[in-house]
């Protein structure tokens, strides 16, 4: 081997040069420590896991589930959230989201129940394992339509069981009632067809043009409110301008989380090259409608007004 004999020779001239990398490495270490001192500690401080939260302790990795829990008056029970959950205290530790999870924060938050919306490929088996190890009940609930929300209500009822107080029982019952009404409305619409109903399209974005298609919670809300969805395809549908012009709509609802968002979508759609008079275009600021949660049920009455052509800001 060459190395052994030459190491000694190399060391002599290189000695000076060699000091530099050591310093650099030390510098790098120092930088990491500094970054941690500057940002890490400060930012870590508010991450409070609540030892005093009432049982059952709940963590949710899905904003829609978290919104639903808050809607049911269970915000106090939430001890962990996803980075997208804004309905609960932002100081709560982020334990994961759709795809990734934080084993350590989850362990520290020590929930009794963990709600996840599983990705198509299913829940990470190592998350399943961790929950089993630490005695966390894992509830997988993908929220697409009213049936899923009803199942979520059942999930919550099961989690609380005997521990549910009067108020919670009341809220669960009224949520079930509303959901049943909506499902009945959808079924009725399916039976008597869309004849005579106003043709509505719900726009969610103007760049690109994203519309509410069939078979999701917004479609169900729309149909149960007496409208017919003018968009003929499933899911969330990106439409080219020509297709929008050919929809044959009576009314377009531009749904936004803020007045500016709703108005800007409405404004863009209004100036499309409509043949003749453009359809009625209304902007609606209904952030609660933007996630498939129980909170969306609150926006139902407002949506029904818009479908019926009452109110709405241009």
């Amino acid at each position: 081997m060459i190395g052994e004999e030459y190491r000694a020779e190399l060391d002599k001239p290189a000695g000076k040069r060699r000091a530099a990398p050591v310093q650099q490495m030390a510098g790098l270490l120092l930088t990491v420590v500094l970054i941690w001192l500057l940002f890490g500690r400060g930012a870590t401080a508010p991450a409070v896991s609540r030892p005093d939260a009432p049982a059952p302790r709940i963590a949710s990795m899905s904003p829609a589930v978290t919104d639903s829990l808050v809607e049911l008056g269970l915000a106090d029970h939430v001890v962990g959230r996803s980075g997208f959950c804004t309905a609960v205290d932002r100081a709560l530790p982020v334990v994961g989201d759709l795809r990734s999870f934080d084993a350590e924060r989850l362990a520290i938050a020590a929930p009794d129940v963990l709600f996840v919306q599983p990705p198509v490929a299913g829940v990470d088996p190592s998350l399943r394992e961790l929950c089993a190890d630490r005695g966390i009940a894992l509830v997988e609930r993908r929220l697409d339509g009213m049936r899923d929300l009803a199942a979520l209500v059942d999930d919550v009822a099961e989690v609380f069981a005997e521990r549910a107080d009067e108020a919670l029982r009341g809220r669960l019952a009224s949520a079930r009632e509303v959901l049943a009404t909506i499902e009945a409305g959808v079924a009725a619409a399916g039976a008597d067809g869309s004849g005579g109903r106003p043709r509505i399209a719900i726009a969610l974005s103007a760049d690109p043009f994203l519309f509410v298609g069939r078979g999701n919670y917004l479609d169900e809300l729309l149909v149960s409110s007496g409208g017919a969805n003018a968009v003929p395809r499933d899911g969330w549908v990106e439409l080219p301008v020509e297709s929008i012009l050919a929809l044959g709509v009576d009314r377009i609802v531009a749904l936004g989380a803020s007045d500016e968002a709703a108005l800007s979508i409405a404004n863009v759609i209004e100036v499309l090259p409509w043949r003749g008079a453009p359809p009625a275009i209304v902007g609606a600021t209904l952030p609660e409608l933007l996630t498939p949660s129980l909170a969306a049920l609150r926006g139902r009455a407002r949506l029904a007004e818009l479908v019926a052509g009452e109110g709405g800001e241009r």
Partner: protein
Amino acid sequence: MLCVFLAGAALLRLAIGPAGGDGGGLSLGFASGAILELRLTAVASAALLGAALSLSGLALQGLLRNPLASPFILGVSSGAGFGVTLALALPLALGLPAARFGGEVVGASAGALAAIVLVGWLGGARRGGDPTTLVLTGVVAGAILSAGSMLVEQLVPFGMRGDLLSWMAGRLPELPSRAAMLTLASSVAVGATLLAARARALDVACLSDEEAASSGVDLARLRFELFVVGGLLAAIAVAYAGPIGFIGLIGPHAARRLVGSHHRALVPASAIAGAALLVGADLVRQAIDLGTGRLPVGVVTAIVGGPAFLWLLRRGRWAS
């Protein structure tokens, strides 16, 4: 060598330290064995992945005689991405039950391997091919495969696209299965051993091709070996963690600055440097809580690694 080892060990310890302060002032009760076990697993998986990426970078830098080569120029990450996309979309298209979580790893490995074989075959790696051809083949194959992924993404239901996108960010497996750890550990061990066994040939290959051949190195064989070792290590790392950038580039460079260019020292030093870097990156994301969840580790390596690389480039001590 010792310096790197020390730095690596220090980082390991640090990785365990600040996370203890995590969870705010009420972490007193959490120094339990279970939490420590979680951290050890995280550190071990980060270290193994870092070592794999760094060794892969070292092998490919030797193969291409270019210190700027990285594991991803062979189209490995695009291939893996395409594999994941197909693994998720195909069962859906064929009306089969959706792929389970493990299906993604299978898809990623298959895609990465297919990309390597394809690029190696087209780029003439077996004939000890010309580095430029190999790089260009890798870049073009990567572009084609990325386009393929996007095509498939257009065909899957809207809700699934998020799954695919989040895969491309690069992440550390939080609680890797025992099988994953064993696969990673054994491939790092085998890769490091193979590279170490060819350390002197790798040194000679730093000369011009003609000089290396004159000295008695079978360049075609050496390059084929480097291609296989570098490609496989990258494929395995990508399959488990998605594309994590810069470790394969910075790891060998940090090692070169510390122990010089002799591969006998460079091979272990690169592995240790890569491990230390990825553990360090994991530490950074562990320590910084922006209130929106931890940063994907790929973001940390790019944000920290990118400027570090530019700095190295400016002070560059290697040959052009």
